[in-house]
C-alpha cells in the first residue's frame, strides 16, 4: 500500500498525527491555503476538494486514510496566469465578493459539471431517469452545499451556466 497522497500531481507523505484532517493537512502541513476552513464540520463547503474525481468536504476526512488517493485542490485547477474556464467565468460574472468561499465554489462547480455529464441526479431533477441538464434550478440545488454569506449565488449560477453552455457548444 502506498504511504503517500497525491496532491495536484505531487506525492506527499501522510501526516504523522492521525487526527489531521485532509483540510488541515493541506493548509497547515503543505501550506496550500487555497482550500478554506469555514466551519470544520461539513456545514459550509468552503473546504471542497476533488478526490479521485469526486468532490468532498476535506474537513470531514482524515488525511491518513487517503493513501494512494489523487486529490485536486483549487491550486490544481488553475493559476492567476492560467485560470480554468470556471475561474474566468467567476471573475467575469462577479461570482464572489469576499472570496473566502470561492475556491470551494469553484472546486464544487468543476466536479458538478462532470456529475451532470455523468448523469447524476439531484433533488431538483423532475425525472430521475432522463438526461440531466445544467438548468438554473439544477445548478442551484447542486451548488447548495457551498454557502456564500455575501450572497453571490445569482452570479455564481450565471458563471456556471456560462461555462456549461460553452461546454455544450464545444
Amino acid at each position, binding site marked *: 500500500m502506498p504511504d503517500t497522497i497525491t496532491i495536484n500531481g505531487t506525492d506527499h507523505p501522510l501526516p504523522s498525527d492521525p487526527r489531521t484532517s485532509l483540510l488541515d493537512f493541506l493548509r497547515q502541513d503543505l501550506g496550500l*491555503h487555497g482550500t478554506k476552513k469555514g466551519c470544520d464540520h461539513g456545514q459550509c463547503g468552503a473546504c471542497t476538494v476533488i478526490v479521485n474525481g469526486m468532490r468532498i468536504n476535506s474537513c470531514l476526512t482524515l488525511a491518513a486514510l487517503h493513501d494512494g488517493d489523487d486529490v485536486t485542490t483549487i491550486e490544481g485547477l488553475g493559476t492567476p496566469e492560467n485560470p480554468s474556464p470556471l475561474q474566468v467565468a467567476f471573475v467575469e460574472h462577479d461570482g464572489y465578493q469576499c472570496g473566502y468561499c470561492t475556491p470551494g465554489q469553484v472546486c464544487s462547480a468543476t466536479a458538478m459539471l462532470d456529475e451532470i455529464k455523468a448523469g447524476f441526479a439531484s433533488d431538483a431533477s423532475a425525472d430521475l431517469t432522463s438526461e440531466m441538464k445544467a438548468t438554473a434550478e439544477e445548478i442551484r440545488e447542486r451548488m447548495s452545499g457551498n454557502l456564500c454569506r455575501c*450572497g453571490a449565488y445569482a*452570479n455564481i449560477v450565471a458563471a456556471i451556466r456560462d461555462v456549461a453552455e460553452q461546454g455544450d457548444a464545444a
Partner: protein
Amino acid sequence: MTAHLKQDEPDTENFLDTMKQGVLGKPVSRVEGLAKVTGTAPYAAEYPIENAADGVIVTSTIVRGEVVSIDKASALAMPGVLAIIDDERLTTRAAQGTAGEAPQQGPTQVFFWGQPIAVVVAETFEQARDAAKHLKVEYRAEEGAPLDPSDAEPEEQEDETVDQGDLAQAMSRADHAVDLAITTEGHASAAMEPHAAIAQWEGDKLTVHASLQMLNYNIAELADTLGIAEDRVRLVSRYVGGGFGSKLGVSEEVVAAAIAAEQVGRPVRVVMSRQQVFQCVMRRSETTQRLRLAGDGEGKLYGFGHEALVSNLPGEEFAEPVLQSSHFLYGGANRALKLEVARIHRMTAGSVRAPGEAVGMPALEIAMDVLAEKSGIDPVELRLRNIPDRDPEEDLPFSSHKLAECLKQGAERFGWDSGARSPRHTLDGEWWTGTGMASAARVHNVGEARARVTLKPDGTAEIRSDMTDIGTGTYTILAQLVAEMLGIAVDDVLVQLGDTDFPRGPGSGGSWGAASIGSAAYLACRALRRMLAEKAGTDESELVLRDGAVDGGRSLVELLDGEELSEEGHYEPGDIADSHTASGFGAFFAEVRVNRFTGETRVDRMLGAFGFGRVLNEKTARSQCLGGITWSIGAALTEALHFDPNDGHLVNCDLAEYHVPVNRDVGEVEVLMVEERDPVASPIQAKGIGELGMCGGAGAIANAIYNACGARVLSFPMTPDRVLEVMPE
C-alpha cells in the same frame, strides 16, 4: 502635503463627470478577482509566519459569576501544550464598531455562557483544541441573571424618543388605523471566514495579521487593550472573508493571539471555531416592535408610531437602532417613536449587516401593507402618497431622494399589477403564488478618511490606505477612481489596502467605506492633477487626461520627466451632515410560492430598485444589492438564533442549524440601479450601498406570503410552522 476637505457645502460641480478616461462606474471585474478564484489571496490565518504556535480559546460554561481557578498543571502536562493563558488583559467581548478603545477585559468575570475565559497554546492545532476541551475550570456562579428580554426592566434610549403631536388621538380618529405587534429573532453575521489572527512580536513591536473591518479604530482598541502605544502596533487585513459587522471591533482572538505570542515568545495563531464565532462574537438583537399607522381616506398618514424593545448585556452601549429610517421615511404629523433595551445575559448584541433597518424596515413595511389593504389603495401608490418633502422630525431637506423613482421604475420592470389585490388568487398545484413589495431606506454615513496616491515616473499609480475590502469592491472602485482622475488604465493602478502602516481610512462598516475612502482618493488625485496642470501649463479644470497623456499633448511619462508625484487626500465629514437628511432609498418586489400543505415558502423572483448616488462600479454595486437581497430572504424565511431559556446559551451555534440561505433559496433576482448624483453625500456624490439591499426586503417577502396564501405572519423568520399557524384553510 495633504489635500484636505471638510465638506460643509453641497457639491454640485460633479467634477468627476468631466473626466474623460471613461472607466468609473463601468462594470469592471474585480482587480483582485483572479487571486480570489485561484485561492492565492491570503486571509488572516494563512500568512506563512515561521514557527507559529496555535492557540484555542476556552469559553465559560456558566452564565454569570467568576472563575475561581483553572487547573493549568494537568493541561500543561498534555502533549505539545505550551501555555494556558488567563491574563487579565484578555478581552471577553469584541469591541463595538468605532469604539476606538478596549472592550470588556478580565476573563475571571463571567457575564454570559460561552464567554472567552482563557486561551490554550500548543505546538499544533489538534493539541491545542484537545487541551482546551480538557481544561478544568472551577467557577463561582451567581444565580438569577435575567436571560430573556421579558425578564428585565427595559431602559429607554432617550435620544431615540420622538413625541410629536398626539398619536393616540390620531389613531382614534383615523379612517384606517393599523396597530400591530411584530417580532424578529436574533441574527448572526456568519461571515464565511472565522475570526482569525496571527500575532508576532519583534522586540516591542507587535504585528497582527487579522480579519478586521476597521483597522483605523482597531489599532487604537488593541493598543488600549494591551496598554501600549499605537505606534507599537501594526495590523494587516488585506483580505477579509466577510464581515457584516462581526469584525468591526477588535475581537477576542486578536487580543488572545497578541498576549499569547508575548508570553510564549513566538508567533501565535488563534482561529475561532465556527461555534465560537456564533457564541461569542456579536448577535443582532431580537426585537419586539409595535407599529401604529393612522391614515386618512386617501391613504395619507397623519399618525406614525414605531416602538421597539431590543436587548444587550449590561454596560453595552449598542442598542439595535430599529427606528433609524422610521424617523424620516414616511410623513405623519403625529409621531411617537421609542426604543428600549432590556439588559440580559446573552452574548453581546452588536452590528449585523444593516443594524436597525434590517429588522425595523420589514416590520414597518408589513404595517404599510396592512394599511394599503384597509384603505383599498395599491401598496406602491400608498407609499408614493406618503413620501415627505422634508424630514418630518428634523424639518431638514433631503440630500437627494429617489424613493418615488425606485417605486415606479421597480414596479414597471417587475410587472407589478396595480389592480385590486386579494390574497389566495392563484393556486398552482400545491402552491399558492403571490406578490408583495416594500420600500427600502438606509441612512447614509461618511467617516474621516485618508489615502495616499502616488503617480510614478512610468505613468502608473499607486494608492495606499489602511481601508479594508471585505468583499464590497473597494480595491476595484479605488483603481477605477484613480484611473479616471489621472487618465490612465485601471490595470495601471496598484491598490494597497489593509495595513496600518498606510494612511488611515474610514474602515468598512455602516456602508460608508466607498463614499469616504473614495473622497480621500478623489482629493489626492485633484492635488496630483493640479501639479500635472502646472507642468502642462494649464489650469486643473482645463486639464484633460486620457490614456496616459494630456489630451492632444504630452504623455504623463514625458510630463513627469522622472519625477514622482505623491499626495495624501484627507476627507472629513463636515457641517453638511447636520443640515440635511441623507439616505439611500429603494423598493423591493417579490414573487413567492407558499405550499398549501406544509407552509414552506420559496422566493421565485425578486427585484430591487435602488438609488444610492453615483454608481462607482456597476458590477460590484449590483453584487452588493444582490447580497442584500439574499440576506433579505434569510431574514424573511430562515434565520433565527435560539437561546436556551435556562442558561441563555446560543443553542443553534453552527451552520447546520443556523440557516443562512443556500443557493437554492435564491430564485431569479434582478437589480435596477436608479443612478443619481447626491451633492451632499460626499464629494464624489456617492452614497452607501452595502446594507440598503436588505433594508425592507424581508417585508416584501412577508407581504407576498400574505398575498399568496392569506397568512399574515407577524413574526420573522416565516418558517413553515409560523405560516401554517395563521394560514386560512
